């Protein structure tokens, strides 16, 4: 029957005629329409077969509409480290005022390390890293990236001064070649700590606006529906967790409480945010690799919070009944360190997950088209018909 080897690519011939078949398709459900018709077109040999699928064209060949920014793991890392640095500085300032030297040293060194690595990651992710200083040639309130650069710079100054003072103290003023500058530097401690604390919370919060003020559907929707709350909570969790891991148990009471508050805030804000976002925009946060990361973050967060609560209870009991055994103290320190690391990891997973969910949401045009269609229809239903980009006239 076959006359050419290419005939095998034809779909099987149908008993019914082409016209009938198409009519039948239309009467079927909307999913059916156009889905299979193309395969049968021309199957009677009457005319050329189309080689391109006649899909339901709610998109252009399923190609992305919005482009993902060229942001990789460096930016995720920076989102995490920025929050960590900001939260740590707040803890450092409190530790200075409440005389907790262990907590103060740990948080200040954490802050400067996180700032340094985070800043380097930002520069590394630029297309032209040698031009990173161009960020500082202007201040633009409409650009969260510009505001963030200035926030990071302002924060970095204070964080660097306080960290230098801590290093100088730790090395008994013998290593840093400060000379006559040593006294003015140490006099700067409180002003510098206050200055960096002023920029600390903006540093933790602005990254949410940076992601939110984009056309990336999942980020934009998250930004409008509470991503800043998720990110500051996550920053509190990271800073509290890092301090719990690095500083002695009897000094990290505030870190534990901050981490617990952050964990509660993170869970509530994330839940509320997902509830208010369009379901199609939430999808990338639930499925695939980003979904795995966000779910892992949730588990780690709960585990870490339970650990932190246990350490807090233990520490309070210990301070009441003085003279507990060294073994109890060691166990408490270990639990504190492990849950601290879990909390910090939870924060990191949140940031990596959110960044990747946004990038994932640009890949399928459905995430762009469906929420936009829906909001357009909602406005039209309300009688607002003058603000559509598509006009009939």
């Amino acid at each position: 029957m076959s006359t050419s080897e290419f005939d095998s690519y034809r779909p099987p011939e149908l008993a019914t005629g082409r016209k009938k078949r198409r009519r039948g398709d239309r009467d079927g459900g909307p999913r059916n329409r156009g889905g299979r018709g193309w395969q049968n077109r021309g199957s009677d040999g009457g005319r050329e077969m189309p080689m391109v699928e006649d899909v339901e064209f709610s998109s252009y060949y399923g190609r992305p509409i919005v482009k993902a920014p060229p942001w990789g793991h460096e930016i995720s890392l920076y989102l995490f480290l920025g929050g960590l640095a900001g939260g740590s500085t707040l803890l450092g300032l409190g530790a200075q005022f409440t005389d907790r030297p262990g907590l103060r040293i740990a948080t200040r060194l954490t802050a400067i390390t996180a700032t340094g690595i985070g800043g380097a990651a930002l520069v590394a992710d630029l297309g032209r890293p040698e031009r990173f200083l161009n960020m500082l040639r202007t201040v633009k309130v409409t650009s969260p990236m510009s505001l963030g650069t200035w926030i990071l710079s302002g924060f970095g100054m204070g964080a660097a001064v306080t960290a230098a003072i801590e290093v100088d103290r730790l090395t008994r003023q013998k290593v840093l070649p400060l000379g006559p500058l040593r006294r003015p530097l140490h006099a700067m401690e409180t002003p510098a700590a206050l200055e960096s604390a002023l920029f600390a919370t903006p540093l933790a919060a602005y990254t949410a606006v940076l992601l939110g003020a984009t056309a990336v559907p999942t980020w934009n929707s998250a930004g409008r529906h509470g991503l800043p709350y998720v990110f500051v909570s996550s920053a509190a969790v990271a800073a509290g967790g890092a301090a719990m891991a690095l500083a002695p148990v009897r000094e990290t009471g505030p870190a534990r409480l901050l981490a617990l508050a952050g964990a509660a805030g993170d869970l509530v804000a994330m839940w509320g945010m997902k509830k208010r976002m369009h379901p199609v925009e939430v999808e990338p946060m639930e499925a695939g690799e980003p979904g795995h990361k966000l779910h892992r973050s949730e588990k780690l967060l709960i585990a870490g919070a339970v650990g932190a609560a246990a350490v807090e209870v233990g520490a309070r009991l210990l301070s009441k009944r003085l003279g507990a055994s060294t073994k109890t103290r060691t166990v408490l320190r270990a639990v504190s360190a492990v849950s601290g690391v879990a909390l910090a990891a939870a924060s990191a997973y949140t940031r990596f997950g959110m960044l990747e969910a946004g990038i994932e949401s640009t890949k399928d045009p459905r995430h762009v088209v469906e929420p936009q269609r829906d909001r357009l229809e909602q406005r039209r239903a309300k009688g607002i018909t003058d603000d559509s980009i598509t006009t009939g006239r």
Partner: protein
Amino acid sequence: MTTSTFGHDTVADGHWAHSAHQRKGFFTDTSICIGCKACEVACKEWNRNPQDGTYELLGSSYDNTGGLGANTWRHVAFIEQDQERIERARESGRKLVSLGMPTIRPRTDEAAAVQPAPNLPSAPEMNVDLLAPGALQPTDPEDFNGLDTTPPDTPDFRWLMSSDVCKHCTHAGCLDVCPTGALFRTEFDTVVVQNDVCNGCGTCVAGCPFGVIERRDDGTINTPTDRDRSASEMDVPDKGTANKCTLCYDRLVDGQTPACAQTCPTTSIKFGDHEDMVAQAHARVEDLHAKGLTEARLYGANPNDGVGGIGSVFLLLDEPEVYGLPPDPRVPTKDLPQMLASAGVAALGMVAAAGLAFLGSRRS
């Protein structure tokens, strides 16, 4: 200033103060696009944009370019549609028209039977030069009174072809979020990247609701002219910076037409003062509606939309998403005041939480 949108949205208003010229823009009439891709070629040639990818076939009709990007500033889309899709497009267009707009004149059946498509030119005499200007022009649209406007028979197949380009938005997301000031509003009210300033942070890529601007990264090489040179040696200009259509800024400065519009053989791409372009677009869509082609609609001619209207107006023959255009784009910085406010509240909350944490663990 040529548009009424100034002051409409203070945050998203970037750099509108110093317009010395009329706002320039395109009107891309996709109903007369023949998909020749001359615009793509002319754009690449004039702007010396490097090669995109490895010339692979995408398997989507005749479109192997894929979409706009760092190296592709004009992109011709090809969409094959059957009768059912055409009817749906016609229906959705009709709905658009009925949204508070004047409706199409109802058909009169007796007129439908006799009228011989009066808007088409009558058979020209044999000795008339068909290529002479005006020889094939349709008769004056003002004469349509009392004529039949019955939709023509729906063809059972059509190709949609559309040349996409940067929209040069009134409220440009890319321009708003650029942290270096590399993106700027020109004296022609277009949006252009200064490649010697851009440091490739990529924020603009995320800021564009149309997915136009892109960072010129890897794997892009010039077409090899010298076989002895390896690909890596070939020159990629402005590597690592953001790139997009400049509306041929260099040509505009010299009073020239952008390369794509200059080369378009069917005048599907029209260039001129933005006001004129919008007026032409309105006239053309009315013209098509008068012929019963209710699927025709304008994209970007409304200054009240989410981006304040766009500099490159389109006439489309189906829903925008069919062409890969967003159905309801919104400049992301429009949400900025609200987001900054909630970030401020969140930041204060964090300070409060830290303060309470220290108060809560006071040592007795």
